[in-house]
């Protein structure tokens, strides 16, 4: 019996903390990767990045609707995964259009990073307007296909436990897709010629130019990679929860926090930062009362909710971690600034 209590407690923790944090962390890691790559290569903090996420997700939703109306589906998988590549193409094209018409001017002028940052605020406005204009400001769910891989009730009956474990298919998809995306990105950066030249450009622009690297090509590749990552992140987040432009905009702070915590400009740092922020957000706002009720003898049962912070302050956590990192180790966990 003693053992069951322990297993119950662990299942509870897995169900409410580990699984959600793992999927949210993967989404955040992808989004942060795109932010950090823009920072590393183009050298500015892109305030519009969260709205690129909205834009990419919106494009995916539109393609999903198109496919659904044409009767195309991916079987047990969500249709959005079929729509994703098309949405990425649209997002990347729009990114490049914005880069041509807006950012490239300042790049040629060698403007300071802070000017580019203000420019990105302008782009942010435009993107918000475009997204709200096309799809509206409301909540949208676009998930279809098989919802659960493991259902709490089946889990309980099968193992004879008091606690159930639910794994939504979106959570598994998230983790798998994020892993694939990360591995291919690191392979690209480390092994391919283009990736290496990107890293060289990020490390030392002048030296890279001297060795004959074409800067325009690097910029284009950077925007394309950023669009792939941010659209994927947005779609995974939207499948897992739902799509709402304002919620996506609010992800900007966790993204920045993750980038700085991990070490801004460093892709490994971005991944670590994403998971750190996600796990802290969820572990610090979870009420551990039931967990301790399983583990501790009755006499020691906690009276309160055993919650460090109320869920209202979820994003305050990413900020607090950010501040701590800024004080203790401003360069981030992985010393950043270069790809």
């Amino acid at each position: 019996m003693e053992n069951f209590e322990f297993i119950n407690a662990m299942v509870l923790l897995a169900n409410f903390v580990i699984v959600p944090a793992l999927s949210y962390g993967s989404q955040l890691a992808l989004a942060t990767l795109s932010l950090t790559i823009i920072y590393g290569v183009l050298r500015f903090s892109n305030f519009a990045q969260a709205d690129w996420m909205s834009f990419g997700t919106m494009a995916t939703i539109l393609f999903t609707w198109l496919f659904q109306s044409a009767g195309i589906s991916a079987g047990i998988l969500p249709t959005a995964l079929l729509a994703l590549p098309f949405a990425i193409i649209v997002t990347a094209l729009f990114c490049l259009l914005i880069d041509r018409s807006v950012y490239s001017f300042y790049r040629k002028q060698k403007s300071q990073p802070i000017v580019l940052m203000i420019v990105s605020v302008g782009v942010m406005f435009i993107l918000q307007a475009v997204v709200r204009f096309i799809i509206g400001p409301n909540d949208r769910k676009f998930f279809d296909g098989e919802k659960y891989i493991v259902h709490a009730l089946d889990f309980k009956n099968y193992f004879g436990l008091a606690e159930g474990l639910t794994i939504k298919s979106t959570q598994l998809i998230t983790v798998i897709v994020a892993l694939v995306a990360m591995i291919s990105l690191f392979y690209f950066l480390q092994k391919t010629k283009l990736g290496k030249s990107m890293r060289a450009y990020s490390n030392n622009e002048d030296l890279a130019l001297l060795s004959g690297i074409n800067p325009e090509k690097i910029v284009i590749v950077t925007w394309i990679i950023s669009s792939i990552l941010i659209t994927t992140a947005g779609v995974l987040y939207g499948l897992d929860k739902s799509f709402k432009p304002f919620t996506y905009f609010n992800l900007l702070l966790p993204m920045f926090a993750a980038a700085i915590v991990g070490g801004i400009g460093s892709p490994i740092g971005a991944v670590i930062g994403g998971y750190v922020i996600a796990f802290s957000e969820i572990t610090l706002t979870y009420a551990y009362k039931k967990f301790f009720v399983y583990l501790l003898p009755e006499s020691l049962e906690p009276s309160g909710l055993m919650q460090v912070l109320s869920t209202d302050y979820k994003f305050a956590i990413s900020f607090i971690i950010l501040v701590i990192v800024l004080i203790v180790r401003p360069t981030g966990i992985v010393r950043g600034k270069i790809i």
Partner: protein
Amino acid sequence: MNDELRAPIAFIIMGILLATVGFTQSWSVSLSVINLCIISSIMAIGVNLQWGYGGLFNAGVMGFTALGGLTAVLVSHDPIYEAWDKAGVGIVISAIIFVLSITALLFVFRNIENKQIRNTLIILIIVFGLIGINNFYGPSIDIIESINPAKTGFLGGLGLPIIFSWLIAAVVAGLIAWVIGKITLRLRSDYLAIATLGISEIVIAVVKHEDWLSRGVKNVSGLDRPVPYEIELQQSEWFLNLVERLNFSKLEAMQSLSSRQDLLNDLVIDSSGIFVKLCYAGLFFSVLLLIFYLSQLALNSPWGRMLRAIRDNEEAASAMGKNIFAQHLQIFIIGSAIIGIAGAMLTTLDGQFTPGSYRPLRFTFIIWLMVIIGGSGNNLGSIFGGFFIWFIWIEAEPLSIGFMNMLAGGLEYENPLRMHLLGSAAHLRLFIMGLLLLLALRFMPRGVIPEKIQKK
């Protein structure tokens, strides 16, 4: 165009725009726009001090505005004695524990060299601090929030006239700015932007969810006013006489006595509204003038020159022996304090504090637009930016609806495309704002009224 002429021309055009609203819509609308324009201008001056003179990107304008608003509530609302009696002690004790833990943390962090001891102590302080605060805080807020929750349910304020809050708001915002500045100003400029973006979200979270402090999303309404109420005006003799005298010819033209009385009543109701708004405008305008005058004075002093020197070349200024960090901190605090004043004024004007209405676009990024389009580094430019951008922000909505109507002109009434176009008209103003910002940055990076380069 001659730089000297830009400011007068810009302000004349602005005046014409506001007068057009006065003539075509109504003077009451025009005055409401002007009041908010003045508040926006003050915020823009605050941001301009930080950005235009100090080169600091503060992305947390919203937070300082909300702090100002909160201060207005805490200063002017009557204290809820019952709540203080029953739970005041608990709140005070948790506040003391909070302050003590932070001081202890800072002390440990600064004075203990050994890493292991330091880290253990830090964890111990945090754990005991949290346990201590939880013991007093939770029960106290439950009591406070249960006292007459429909009407109060919070601790109330000091019961002072609301106009004091404008000054206190400056102090509160300045203190918070000091803390943020201490942490982030030594780092790269982007970090300040990100940190202030974060702190503003936290401030909003606190005022939204700490019901014992601010009633949260239940809002605090019915704050007292620094100007007379419309209803009092309508009943006072001197005001009736004034309205009668001003509209003498109009009233004379009326034939019967009863229709003349009706007209007078209408006029009194209209003019009382306008009078109140004029009072606000007068108050706000004096604050604006004072802040403008003081900042011009400061910025033309040796201190202002030093700031510009630091902004233009940090290394050189540092080599001349200027303490860059201290100067940045000063200007960051001053700018934030000014934004705090504007926040308190805004809440005073609204007569209520609505935490849910603070959105980063409306309170942070729009203010940035004002500074950049007005001309960063020029306070007059910021004032113009404040007026112009606020005017566009307000008038963009009717204009976009008109534009959409034109676009959908050929379509039938029930056409889904037409419905969609009209429904999304409100989002067009975001587009206009973004476009204005991008165009200004590209073609007029120095703004409408550029910074004067002093050559001596």
